[in-house]
């Protein structure tokens, strides 16, 4: 890949829906305050029937979801939770970027994530198992992940390419990289990238727990302590419902009244481990970081903030720190967004791009929750309190099952 021109591609708008707040202002406030929403999950279909005591799945769920009047959920009565979250989130990003001023033929939308609506599919299957003749016809297209892209296309009148891409927990980054390439190739002038809400059912929760990826046995009765990436007591990731949307475009195209672009994409990279399984790879992570720095044309010492993947997996967290050290990045301030939001799976890559954006804008880094004994204390951790810190060059990482490694470099425009 060629090095992009300085400030060529920027983030011109953002929207977010998360368990710690809906909308960028609420999210930002909760992020800097380290406010979390972890508990034993209550959404229908999240807990297996008759769970044993102490075995409830932990996570952070949306308390409510406000849909804007103009696109009111009434228009899409069969929209899933994932689709409704996308509608609300894209609506915020759309207005932030003033996309009403852009030709809808030149706008695209890429949804990051696959198999997003598992919980609703399970509920439908349970409801109609014994009366299949009455299954709603809309299931015939609502079961598709692409329904989320289609609903957004209709709601906002988007006429450019709208589609989904998947890369497990790196899906948000994979979508962002696709968006960058769509603009670079001239297919669209503005691209909305959605890290979609992965709506887990108890089937996924159970399998993720039994494979050792999802916590937490250790903190079963203390949900507020369970999510602790990079801490020596962590025993897996804790799920957090979330959806993020960013608008990306060329800097020259984004210069519309009311649009504030403060962050540019300076590099992006994706590499595979050639491994179907969930294991991480030090070599793969080192490779993707080296590639992204090379593409961005910056030295490791110039990176002054790392927003890591940091899921809370013991091996994953250790490997990530080893890779950062091997790449000369152990000097950079680092925190763990997932310690506050939980792991949004498909959403995570975009949610963390937005977390980086709001930190750059504020000149401040958010705290890391529950980081009591870092597994490597020599890193420059942001602990329990937010710290003032102007960021010029940030590195954001996402990793996914199936050997997916992605990295994005961002530069502050100020």
């Amino acid at each position, binding site marked *: 890949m060629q090095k992009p021109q300085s400030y060529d591609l920027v983030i011109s708008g953002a929207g977010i829906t998360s368990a710690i707040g809906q909308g960028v202002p609420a999210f930002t406030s909760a992020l800097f305050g380290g406010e979390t929403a972890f508990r034993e999950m209550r959404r229908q279909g999240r807990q297996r029937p008759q769970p044993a005591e102490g075995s409830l799945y932990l996570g952070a769920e949306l308390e409510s979801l406000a849909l804007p009047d103009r696109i009111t959920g*009434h228009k899409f*009565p069969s929209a899933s939770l994932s689709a409704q979250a996308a509608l609300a989130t894209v609506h915020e990003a759309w207005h932030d970027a003033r996309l009403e001023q852009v030709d809808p033929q030149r706008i695209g939308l890429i949804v990051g994530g696959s198999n997003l609506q598992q919980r609703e599919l399970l509920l439908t299957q349970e409801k109609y198992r014994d009366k299949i003749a009455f299954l709603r016809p*809309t299931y015939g297209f609502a079961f598709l992940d692409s329904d989320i892209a289609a609903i957004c296309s209709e709601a906002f009148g988007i006429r450019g390419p709208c589609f989904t891409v998947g890369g497990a927990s790196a899906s948000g980054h994979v979508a962002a990289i696709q968006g960058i390439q769509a603009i670079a190739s001239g297919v669209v002038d503005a691209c909305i990238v959605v890290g979609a809400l992965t709506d887990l059912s108890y089937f996924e929760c159970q399998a993720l727990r039994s494979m050792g990826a999802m916590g937490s046995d250790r903190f079963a009765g203390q949900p507020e302590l369970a999510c602790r990436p990079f801490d020596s007591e962590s025993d897996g990731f804790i799920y957090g419902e979330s959806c993020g949307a960013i608008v990306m475009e060329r800097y020259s195209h984004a210069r519309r009244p009311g649009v504030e672009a403060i962050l540019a994409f300076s590099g992006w990279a994706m590499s595979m481990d050639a491994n179907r399984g969930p294991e991480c790879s030090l070599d793969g992570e080192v490779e993707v970081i080296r590639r992204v720095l090379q593409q961005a044309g910056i030295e490791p010492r110039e990176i002054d903030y790392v927003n890591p993947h940091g899921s809370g997996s013991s091996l994953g967290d250790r490997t990530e720190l080893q890779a950062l050290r091997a790449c000369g990045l152990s000097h950079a301030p680092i925190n763990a967004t997932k310690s506050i939001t939980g792991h949004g799976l498909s959403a995570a890559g975009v949610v963390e791009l937005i977390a980086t954006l709001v930190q750059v804008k504020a000149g401040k880094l958010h705290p890391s929750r529950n980081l009591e004994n870092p597994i490597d204390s020599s890193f420059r951790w942001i602990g329990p309190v937010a710290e003032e810190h102007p960021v010029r060059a940030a590195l954001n990482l996402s990793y996914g099952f199936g050997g997916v490694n992605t990295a994005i470099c961002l530069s502050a425009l100020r």
Partner: protein
Amino acid sequence: MTVHDIFNLIVKNTREVVPELGEHAFQPADRLRDLGANSIDRSEILIMTLEDISLAAPLVQFAGASSIGELAELIYAKAAVL
């Protein structure tokens, strides 16, 4: 269960599927297509109504109805046979 009851179920389900009709004063002569219900909406409304009265019958049997009133009559007749 009377024809009128079934008519009311169709109205309830139509309002759920096409919320814009929330304030519409439904008449038996109303045609779903004319009210803005597309083909998916219409099959959705029919299935929901059949589910309400637990009548499992092929949808094609109701294709001849030209209005909500006729549809209510057809469903009523089919339910009465079973």
